[in-house]
């Protein structure tokens, strides 16, 4: 069942290829718990892929596995993950560190938790540059200012000197995105980056992500539970439930003609500001 996929390259490799990935959680007693079961996801260059699921669907674990940042008791039981032609699933920590930030970047859910409150924004956003590129601090500062501009943070020269708590929630999230962009990664993994934001700020962040894809050709894995965001932003959608992929396809087709019952249920349950109570969609 292969549907035409806009970003797929007939002779090329996808940016990210996850095949039959299973993640198990070691319990102290008893058999290990399978949290993710034979999940396969492809992300092509320049594609924005939505991974949608409710809590417990395994979507976050899947993204963490890609970065080899699974929590202590969890481990990949089977399957492969490839970034271009580089296998990730058995990669050493040292080799992963070379990739993280540089070729794969994570934009986590709660920016405030991820930012060091005692470090100035300029220095934090520049950290990936220091770690990977060995730029002189002069050049690093310039790059950081450009990055802040790219994420539409006004007056970057002033903001660079400020601390996270002086930024609003939306700005913090944009600073995190700037950090993610610092080294021009091929793949951005965004895990519910707008859940904690006001809806107007969310709209700006989504617009920004689309710009990043348009201008730099980065691929984005967007993890969310919000169907509306997926409809607006994503090219291709994977629907996850209880650790499995229930359905996947182009956004429009998925919404107009969902094939799995679960997808249909999600669509029905999602309220729209344009429906009145009791009116079927």
């Amino acid at each position, binding site marked *: 069942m292969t549907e035409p996929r806009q970003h797929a390259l007939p002779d090329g490799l996808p940016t990210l290829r996850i095949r039959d990935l299973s993640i198990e959680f070691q319990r102290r007693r008893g058999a290990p718990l399978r949290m993710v079961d034979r999940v396969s996801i492809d992300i092509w260059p320049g594609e924005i892929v939505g991974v949608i699921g409710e809590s417990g669907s395994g979507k976050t674990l899947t993204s963490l596995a890609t970065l080899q940042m699974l929590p202590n008791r969890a481990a990949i039981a089977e399957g492969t993950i490839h970034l271009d032609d580089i296998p990730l699933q058995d990669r050493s920590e040292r080799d992963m560190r070379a990739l993280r930030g540089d070729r794969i970047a994570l934009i986590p859910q709660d920016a405030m938790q991820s930012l060091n409150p005692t470090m100035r924004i300029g220095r934090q956003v520049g950290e990936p540059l220091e770690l990977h590129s060995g730029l002189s601090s002069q050049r690093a500062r310039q790059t950081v200012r450009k990055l802040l501009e790219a994420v539409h943070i006004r007056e970057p020269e002033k903001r660079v000197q400020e601390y996270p708590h002086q930024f609003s*929630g939306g700005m913090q999230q944009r600073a995190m995105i700037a950090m993610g962009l610092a080294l021009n990664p091929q793949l951005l993994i965004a895990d519910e980056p707008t859940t904690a934001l006001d*809806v107007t700020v969310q709209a700006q962040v*989504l617009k920004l992500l689309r710009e990043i894809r348009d201008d730099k050709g980065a691929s984005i894995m967007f993890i969310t539970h919000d169907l509306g965001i997926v*409809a607006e932003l994503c090219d291709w959608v994977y629907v996850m439930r209880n650790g499995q992929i229930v359905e996947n396809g182009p956004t429009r087709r998925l919404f107009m003609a969902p094939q799995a019952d679960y997808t249909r249920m999600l669509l029905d*349950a999602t309220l729209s500001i344009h429906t009145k109570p009791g009116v079927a969609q």
Partner: protein
Amino acid sequence: MITLSGVGKVFGQKRMFGGSSEFAAVSNVSLSVARGQTLGIVGESGSGKSTLLRIVLGLIRPTTGTINIDGQDIATLPRRDEKAFRRKVQPIFQNPASSFNPRQSIGAILRAPLEVHDIGTRQSRPDRVAKLLVRVGLPVDYASRYPHQLSGGQKQRVAIARAIILEPSIVLADEPTSALDVSVQSQVLELFRETREAMGLTSIFVSHNLAVIRQVSDTVAVMRLGRILEMGRVDDIFANPQHEYTRALIDAVPDHAAIMARS
């Protein structure tokens, strides 16, 4: 039934040598809710909607203005009438994780309001609790369970049960479904609607989620930075937003139905 007039709340204090840490969470809010109707208050963070709700609940004293509930001005309510007031007006809060005392069983949590207001007897209360659990769609034996054993959706059902056990006339809900999964959210909202209708409740529903507000409300008030920008019947507000902030809010919501229709 509920009438607010010029209600304001200022937090903070003036400092000694000039300057102040004061800020107005709520400014000059006037609104009314007719009996049996639901007012949806929509606003982003910092809009003051939660503070306003707590003022109506009597948990925060307003700095200015009057709040009239069913003929009584609650800002000047004498102590001894407070308890009776609490019976009439009940809250449903947002966070299922912390809305319940983790050390108490669900049954104890639901019995508490009855005990505080001396309703029923020790023998009759468990019965009433059991009936209520069934009514909100939970198995009766959940009374002996503890909050951590329930899912988010189940906890919110208990929250609704707790809100109605005293048979109030007014229910004030602060983002009761924001922390829930989409599929659970619609079930809980449906339960809320059923309950409202069956009991003829007047309610105020606060949320940042426009779709939920649309679903639940009869009238809508849009709040920003402590003020009400616009208020009216729900269909009017959504079809014909007058204020540009309201328009911006509606436009900002990624709505799959609209998008699919558009493309």
